[in-house]
């Protein structure tokens, strides 16, 4: 399955939803949105987001890649990279 970046953002919103209180802000995210400073996600929950993303996209995200997932854009970069690895 090939997804474009906008499709991944839409899917990513569902992954992030359980971890942020501000649904309006979540609705309006773009590639620059920072998970911790903008979406106010507890940094401990980044671990859970990565586990959920692995299961949603059926990929494995190694620790080095996970450290890059700071804003929405870098999350998409990592997800696309790992999905491409599978193809």
């Amino acid at each position, binding site marked *: 399955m090939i997804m474009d970046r906008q499709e991944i953002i839409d899917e990513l919103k569902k992954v992030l939803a*359980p*971890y*942020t*209180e501000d649904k309006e802000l979540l609705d309006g995210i773009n590639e620059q949105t920072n998970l911790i400073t903008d979406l106010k996600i*507890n940094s*401990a*929950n980044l*671990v*859970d987001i990565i*586990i959920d993303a*692995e299961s949603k996209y059926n990929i494995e995200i190694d620790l080095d890649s996970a450290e890059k997932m700071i804003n929405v854009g870098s999350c998409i970069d990592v997800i696309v990279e790992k999905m491409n690895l599978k193809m």
Partner: protein
Amino acid sequence: MNHRVVITGLGVVSPNGVGVRDFLHSIQNGVSGIKFIPEYERLNFNCQVTGMPPFEWNQLKNYISEVSFNGLKAIGIGYGIKAALDAWTDAGNNIISEEPHWETGCVFGNSVGDSEVIKNAIARIDAGEAKKIGSRVVEQFMNSGVTAYISGRLGLGNRVITNSAACATGTQAILMGYEYIKQGLAKRMLVGSTEHIDTYIFGTFDSMRILARKFNHLPEQASRPMSATACGFVPGSGSGALVLEQLDYALERNATIYAEIVGGASNSGGQRFGGTMTAPGSKGIIKCIAEAIGNSNISAKSIDLICGHLTATAADPLEIQNWGEALDRKDDNFPLINSLKSMIGHCLSAAGSIEAVAAVLQIVHQFVHPNINLEDPDPEILKMINTNKLPTTMVKKEINIVAKANFGFGDINTCIIFSKYNDNG
């Protein structure tokens, strides 16, 4: 420095009522919360009944943030949050504050972290999938999880402690909170305890052959403290919470005062002279009750009601004998005595806090709740006290002083003296 300590808030999650209003109705009317659990039959347990609160899990969305709720699986923590936050708002406090409440602390107890959560983590780790466990598991299997959830939600900034003393946990938590305020270390303490007996905890107690096994098809009759046909205790789950407050602080903010704690004591029999890991020793118990009465500056004669530990095991007659010796009262001179466990079973770490909420309600509403399943009092008990000291229907009566005690595995004893609040001391 010796401050008076009053109770200004109550919260409860009990097998026979969630919330103070339902709980009060149940204890006044002798409503049992014990039910047969088909799963226990399948698991070959000897005892197949338990007291499980009719708890609607989704209501916790009104108590904690959505993010916090989404990852919460530990049921005992859920009970504790509900009871503690209900007590907090019952005392007239808001849940939101920017600054921590530096003057307010928390002592909340439990037996173990959530064993279902622990089991899932163990399965993941054994399968080589530790990295899939996520960030929300440790906070739910650490024993201080419940205290951390409560104090974090309310911003409690004084000492925050998780205690554990088996069946004495709840009364011990209340006593510790009382002592901190009395000594001037805190102005308010949110105290209580929680217990969720899942199949794993239940099974380990069942294996000790100390649970009631003869009433599996008559669950409401299974918990029979002080009865000749008592055959072991019935485990129960739930949570109780109280807001304790320095009297002056409560008066300053015009809080409703339910009752006063005038004294209490906690000790251990040292597992000597008949005390063991599982059995309480009389010497320690009598000393504990006498010390509580002594530091309360009340006379043993003034005790109107004993809310006993009384679990429905062979230890019940011995407990009556210990109270009799400690108070130097017997026969018709013995106070009224009841056991909430007849209705809800033995809630282990939560027993003391739920039973303390019941004790305070009996002072507030001036009644003595019935002992259900006590149509056949143990003849050994009737040699020490008169039958009319064992009410089987609600008694409306002036209740000024209540003695409440619990005794836990490890030979730990705790006794608290509650009094009707009297503004001239």
